[in-house]
Structures are given as structure tokens and as C-alpha cells.
């Protein structure tokens, strides 16, 4: 079910079909993605794992419209993003996608609130007040909204980033090592928010991580190695993921 060549089903928020990404040519060619076909179902939290260089970040970036595939296609809903031009891609990201990164992901001159509302500001729309308040309550930032990022701790900054991804109710949120720069307690907080967003509001999340504990918050884990999906695991626990990862190293 995770690997499929069937026609798109409604339940996939994003898909990749025979996705290939090659750097260089001839003998020097490196296949970051060597033919990946995958669905990311709606209302689910999917984790992508794999050792360094397995292609997990490349997969996420290509599906999220940040990078282009060498061949194959990637879909957000029913939209084939390989057919979009640069501006269309930007607008698609603005209107339908959310992003959370490891670090450096806030604009330093904007307050927390302005950062959270930035995607909506760019789109020229307003936030739904009730929804905004609810998210603020969830992430616990009510009294920090007027602060600049430099006045916030790392964990608080990442919570702002999570809120920014959640507020516009995107079709899908892509997270790249969201807890990579945080201490474990703060990491757990962030992962909890993400989990709750999926459970409570039906948000779809795709997260790239190399941390088995982070992966355990997902509904399902995909394992990548050498540019291909080699395994998947439903309802993962940290221990099971760790065991599976050890096999790659062995």
C-alpha cells in the first residue's frame, strides 16, 4: 500500500511516481532517487528515514516542489508539479503547503506573530481568528507573539515555525529534521504538537528524520536506502525503528 503503481486515489495528499533524481552524468552520475513510487495518504503523519545519503531529503524536496526530478512525476493532490513553472510552484507552496525546518527558518526582523502570519500575508488573506487562537493555545505562544525571534529560545522559535506551518491549514506539511537542533525535552514538545495536529484537525504531515524516537510519533515510517524505498513500518515504536535502522548499518 505504501508502494503503488495504481492510479491516484483521493486519499493521497501527495505522491511520487517513478521519481528519479540524478546528479552528474555518465560514470560520475549519482542517483539520489532511483525510481521511487510512493503515496502520502491524507490525514496521516508519515516519517521518512534512512541513513545519510539515502535520498530521504531529496525525496521530500522534490515532492514539496523545492527541487525538480530528473524523471518521473510528483503530485500534490491531483496537481502534477513537474509541469508547473517556477512562479506556479511558489504559489502552490504558498497556498497548499507548509514547511518546518531544522533551523534558520524565521525572518529575524518580524515578530513571532508576523512570522506566523507570513504565508497568509504573502497570499493577501487573513487568518481565521478562532483557528489562530486555538493554535496559539496549543503551542503556548500567546504571551510571546510580540517578540522578535532573537528574543526567543530555540524551542520557542521552532514552535513559532510549527504554528506558521499550521495556521494556513495547508494540504500537507513537510518537516525536515524539525527536532534536529533541539534538546530532547523540547523535541518531544514539538513532536507532540505535530501529532496532535494530525489527530485533532486531520492535518497531513511528511517528516524527514534520522531520529528513531521522532519517527515513533508517525503513523508510518518509510525506509530509504540508495535512492529506493526498501521497507515500511506501520505504527512504529522507537525500538522497532532503531532495530530496523541497525540492519542498514550492518
Amino acid at each position: 500500500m505504501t508502494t503503488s503503481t495504481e492510479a491516484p486515489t483521493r486519499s493521497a495528499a501527495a505522491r511520487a511516481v517513478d521519481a528519479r533524481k540524478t546528479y552528474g552524468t555518465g560514470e560520475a552520475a549519482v542517483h539520489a532517487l532511483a525510481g521511487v513510487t510512493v503515496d502520502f495518504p491524507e490525514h496521516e503523519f508519515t516519517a521518512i528515514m534512512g541513513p545519510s545519503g539515502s535520498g530521504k531529503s531529496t525525496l521530500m524536496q522534490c515532492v514539496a516542489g523545492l527541487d525538480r526530478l530528473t524523471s518521473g512525476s510528483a503530485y500534490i493532490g491531483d496537481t502534477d508539479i513537474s509541469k508547473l513553472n517556477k512562479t506556479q510552484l511558489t504559489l502552490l507552496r504558498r497556498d497548499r503547503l507548509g514547511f518546518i525546518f531544522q533551523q534558520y527558518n524565521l525572518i529575524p526582523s518580524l515578530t513571532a506573530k508576523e512570522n506566523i502570519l507570513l504565508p497568509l500575508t504573502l497570499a493577501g488573506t487573513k487568518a481565521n481568528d478562532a483557528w489562530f487562537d486555538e493554535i496559539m493555545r496549543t503551542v503556548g505562544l500567546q504571551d510571546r507573539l510580540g517578540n522578535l525571534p532573537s528574543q526567543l529560545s530555540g524551542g520557542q522559535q521552532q514552535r513559532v515555525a510549527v504554528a506558521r506551518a499550521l495556521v494556513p491549514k495547508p494540504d500537507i506539511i513537510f518537516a525536515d529534521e524539525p527536532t534536529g537542533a533541539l534538546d530532547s525535552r523540547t523535541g518531544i514538545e514539538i513532536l507532540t504538537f505535530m501529532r496532535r495536529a494530525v489527530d485533532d484537525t486531520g492535518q497531513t504531515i511528511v517528516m524527514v528524520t534520522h531520529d528513531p524516537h521522532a519517527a515513533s510519533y508517525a503513523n508510518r515510517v518509510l525506509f530509504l536506502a540508495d535512492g529506493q524505498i526498501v521497507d515500511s513500518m506501520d505504527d512504529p515504536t522507537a525500538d522497532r525503528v532503531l532495530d530496523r535502522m541497525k540492519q542498514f548499518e550492518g
Partner: protein
Amino acid sequence: MIKLVLSSVRHNLARYLATLVAISAGVGFFVAVSVISDGIISSLDGNVDAQYGTVDVAVVPDDTTTVASTGAEPEPLKLPQSSVDHLLALPGVDGGAGILTAPVAFQAEDGKPFATSATGRLWITDKELNPLTVTEGKAPTSSGQIAVDQGTADDQHLKVGESLTLLTLAGKQKVTLVGITDFGDSDALDTGGTVSISEPDAFTWLNNGQQEYASFYLRGNDPSTLVAEAGQVIPDGFNVQTGNEFRQDQRDANGSFAQGLKKALQAFAVLALLVGGFVIYNTFSVIVAQRLRELAVLAAIGATPRQLKRSLRLEGVVLGIVGSVLGVITGYLLTLALEGVLKATGNTLPGGLSVSTSTIVSGLLLGTIITVLSVMIPARRAGRTEPIEAMREAATESASLGRTRGIVCVVLGVLGLVAMLAGSSLAVIGLGVVAFVASVFVGAPYLARGGARAARPLLERFGIEGRLAVDNSVRSPKRTATTANALLIGVFLVTLVAVAGASIRDFAIQQVNDLQSADYVVVSTGGTIDPAFVAKLRDVKDVNEVVAFRREPVTIDSKASIASAGDVAQMAKIASIKAENGSLADLTTGTIAVLDTGEGKVPAVGSTVTVKDSRGKDVQLRVVAVLAPTQDTGQTGSIIDEHTFDSLVGDVAPTVAFVDIASGAQGSTKDAIQNLADLRPDITAQEGNAVGKLIRSVFDFLIKAVTGLLLMSVVIALIGIINTMSLSILERRRELGLLRIIGMTDKRVRRMVTLESVLISLLGTLGGMLTGLVVSLLLVLSFNRLSQATITPSIPWVELIVILVLGVLLGVLAALLPARRSTRMEVLDAIAAS
């Protein structure tokens, strides 16, 4: 360490290119200005030493007292042969040389004149006193022989041995070219060419046969004794000077104007350096700020702060030297380009182009020193930064501004304003200007921050990108300020020159316009305005009246002056000749209407004055009127009746004429009158209001020339903005990438960069313009206060608006490259793990 520096240069090639551009632009600007001003200065200084180096004693006419502001230059007194004989007979005189010049021209076989502005000179037989040397052929010694300067010979293709027709005051002469002369390093002694004429012909051709000299130079062993003795034998209206005094006078004569311009040009070169310095400093501080992380890593692995500083300093030296060498070359190319442009428009750079060693050395030194200093200031900051702090986040300049800065800014500003408002001398006022401008520079970060914040509501209309543009310029107000300062100083000076220059120009023109005048003044130098020529003038269409009159250099109560005689009623009808006291109608034999020259005491009506001509004849005359100083009375000087003139000077022909033309026909008559004058080498025709026109054109030229040079500084500022924006974009590539990831389109990213650039250039333009307005208005006020003049400040609004619009355009232009770059970077850079 050198290895480290080289690898750093390799890895940061784009940034170093930006720095090199900055350094070579700054140094190039300095070198170009230096080369051009050196040329202008040397052409103004003239070759006083080459021309008069061997003169021990000089006998020269006193400056004729005349209306100073009119620019009229009537013929001065001449020294008669009898006086010269006395001079040469003095004990201790080793040799002498009389100077006699008059306009000459050549006539080609087809009747057309050429070399029409050449000067005929009596050939000086005393080899030591003669500034000319014969380079080909021989000296003109007997009648019918002439020599010409190398330049004229080359231009007109004249060969030694050739027979030519020379137009002189005494008519056409058949002459033979026997020699080619050289004057020091240059070809000609006179700008229009020098024609040397042998002694037997000179007095006839150049001075109506009178054995007289314009001035006389002596050689002798004991100049001071000679001066005293010579003083005994020379007539009134002449002055004896030692060689040194004389040479100094000549230098001074070449310019109070030249001195002022020289200082202005030198100040301008320093300014050029300052602007270049800003650009270099700014670029470097941005680069070092970006590299704090790299430096921190080095510090973390054990490099001491001293080693870090040394490495940066070495980098500065290498870059400084390379950039300065490129800059010297750039500067020279720039002057070549300027010369080309001028040539294309039919002009030449005065003095030509010569790059002196001192220009090259100072260009190299200054470029290198400024670069090293520019590196050391941010390097000190880098040395102080804790490694761990620097590694954590791409540390950039702090947004906080120290308290000292505020205090210094306010103190300088107040001192400057007070000095400009109340200063009692030009020096104090000048220092006030410097203090005020310095205060603006020191306070520029506040202005940048305040200005950017003030602009926020306006820029926010452009959406979030406008807001971010403001935020970014406020984030580092010091950097924004140094970038804007480079532009500020240029715009400040352009405004200063435009406003102060225009005010003074308009004042001067108005002064001249107050003096109504004849439409043309036709003057014969050495010849006469004979009835035939008057008739020709009258035949010109639209000429209403021609009044010729006689004019003679005289002394009045021993003061050199001029006196004229003619049909006073006719003269007063077409020219501005009025009595401020007494009446012209009372002018009869034995009386005089003296000119009020505006300086010295004017003889009262009813008093008696002694009038003496150059041959020593004198006459006592009763003053019946005092003439008001106008442009026309500047031409006539004092007026005496025809009979008095006859008895004093003799029955000579008129040499000057006033011409009245139908109103509005100034343009159409100009060529016809000029053509008539061209056929007679002795005659020049001057438009009556020429002085006003001259003043306007001189001022306009100066304002344009200086503005042109200043615009170069604006171009340098443009490079500064491009550099800062490009570097700032590199620095913020993560932030920009993030904005694009979460949905800012490329168009809006580019607009954000452009808005920031426009904001910086507007800050610089407005700041410079306001500073320029304040300073120039205060300058005009202080000038009025000091000189009792009443200059009304004229603000050239149109030009100011043009400057403002140019400022905005400059910002847009400067953003083109950085904006393109901002969207060319990969969005993935934003999330790449450092």
C-alpha cells in the same frame, strides 16, 4: 598565513571581486581628478619662470584704474624710447629687452585670413632675456623677416624660406619666414601663436611707427640699486620691480582665479578619495562581518586574535595593492575617456594629460592605506567576538548605536551651525561647514534608522516586501548609513554647487545688467577706427548709429587711467554715460569729466586735476562732472573735450567706437560685424553686454564642469550600493530562500531588493540635498553678512527635482544586479545544513 589568505581569496572570489571593484573605483576616481586638476593647474600657473627667469629688473605700467567689474581693458601706457635710453644708460645694466606686441594675422593667396588670433612680437636681441629659442632657420634680424612658433608652423604647414603675406596694424606686408621658434616645453608663447618680427619692422607694424614699449626688462648685477635708479628715470604711470617681485606678480595675475580653482580642485581630489574610502570601508566591513564565523572557527582551533588580525591585515594589503594598481589604470583610462568625450564636442582639457609620479604614488598609498584601515576596524571587532558566539549564528553588525556617537553628532552639528551663522571670517565659516557635514556623517546611522522608519508607512503599501525592505535597512543602520553616505556626499556637493553657484551667478549677472550699455564696442588695438571702417559698419543691416571716439592712456594726478574725447552728446545717446555730479553739458576746453572708478577718492566738481600723457606732456583741467561707473564709462574712462585732447595728445584718429543696433538684432548683426573685424587684425568687436554673457558662461561652465566631476562621485556611490546590496543578499540567502519556500514569488523578492536599494539611495539623496541646501543658504547669508552684498539665494528647483528623481533611478539601477542574483540562488540554500 599567506596560504590561508590565498585560499580565503580563492573561496570568496565574488566578494573579493566586489572589493577590488570598490578599491579601484575609489582610487581611479582620485587619480582621474588628480590628473585633470594637475593639467588645469599647470596650464593656469603658466611658464612664468621660463618666460621671465632671467629678468633682474622690470619696468611695467601701473594697473590702469578703471571700473573693475566691467572687464574693460583699454590700452595701457607705453614706455617711450627716450626713457628706455635712460634706462640702458644706467650703470650696472648688462642688457635690456623691450616688449612690444600687437595682433597680427596671415593672409592666404586666396585672400582668406588665417592664424587670426596670433600675436606679433618684437624680436628680442638680448639672448639671455629672450624666452624664445630658434629651433630651425635663423632669428628675424632685418626688415621683411619673421619667425613663427612651432605650433603655428605645424598647424598651417609653413616652411622656412616661404614668402607670406602678414596682416598688421600698418596694413599688408610681404614677409619671408626665416625661422621657427620654441618656448620652453611648449611651442608658443601666446595662445594664438607667436609671430616674431625684426626690430626694423616692429615699431611700424605693431605700434604705428612710435618707438615705444609695453614694458622693459633689464639684466644687471645689483637689482636693488638698479630698481632705485630706474625709478628716477621712468615717467608717471610706470612701476619698477625686481625680477622676483615681477615674477610673483605675474603668477598672481595668472590667477587669483587660478589659485582659487587650484584649491577647489585639490579639495575635490581629497573628496574623491573620501568617497572612494567610504565605498572601500563599507564593502570590507560587510565582508568581515560575514566571515566572522569562519574567523571564529579559526579562533576555536587555536588561532590567536593577533594571528587573525595579521591574516586580515595581510589580506587588506594584498587587496589594497592589487586594487590600487587597477585603480591607477582605471583612473588614467577615465581621463582618456573624458578627453575623448571633450574632443568629440570640440573642446580640449586645459593642460593636457600627464600622470605625475606623485599622483601614482599617492593613489597607490592612499588606496592601500584606506583598504588596510577599512579591514582593521571590523577586524578588531572580529578579534573581540567570542568564538562560540560567532559560530552560533551568522553574526552581523549590531543595530545598537553608541551614546558617544549621539553626543559627537549633536556637538559637531551645533558648533558647525554656530560657526556658519556667526563666524567672522571665511576660515571659521569653512570650519563650520566641515563640522556640520561631519556631524551629518556621524549622525547618518540615526538618519538612516529614522528615515527608514519614516518611510515605512509608504513602503508598506508595497506589501510585506516593502516592510521587509525597511526592516533590513534598519537592522544594520551603520551599514545602511555608510552606503548612503557615499551618495550623500556627492549629492551634497552637487546641491551646494548648484545652489551657491547659481545664487552668486545670478547676483553677478544682475549687477552687470544694471549697467545699460552700447550694443557693441569696437576697439582697434594699435590701429585706428578710420572713417572708411565706420562707413562699413554703418552699412551693416540693422546698425543704427556708430560713434567713434579717441582714447588715450594718461595719468590723472599721477594715477594711471584713460581719457577719451569725441561727440559726447552722440556717445551719451547710445551708451550709458551719465554724470553723478556736475553736468556733461559744461564740458569745454580746459575741463574734464572724471570717472568714478569706485575706488579711491574721486576729485570733486570744481577742483583741478593734472592730466599727463605718456610722452610727458601735461595739462591742468578743471573738473566739471563726475561720471558714474558703467560698462561704457569703463571703456571711455574720463572724458575731455576735443580741443583739450588735441593739445594733449595731438590730432590722432579715433580708436574706439560705440555701435547701436536696432533692438532685437543682436544675433543677426553679430556675424556681419565680426567678419568686418576679422579682416582687420587690430580690430576686435565686443558685444556690449558681453560681460554679462561672459559672467554667465563662465559660471555656467564652472558649475557644469564641477557638477560633471561630482557626478563621477555619484557613479562611485552607485557601485557602493550595488556592492552593499549584493553582499547583503549573500548574507541573507537563507532568509531569502525561506521567503521563497513559503511562497514569495521571484518578482516580489526582486521588488523587495529594489525597494531597499531605492530606500538607501533616497536616504543618501535626500540627506545630501538637505545638507547641501542648509549649508549653501547659510553660506550665502554669511557672505552677505561679511561683504554687505545682497545675494538672494536662488534655489534651482528643477535641478533639485532632477537630482531627486535621479536618486530614485540610481536605486533601481543599483538593484538590478543584486535583485537578479537574489532569485538565482537555490531555494535549497535556505535549508542546507549550513
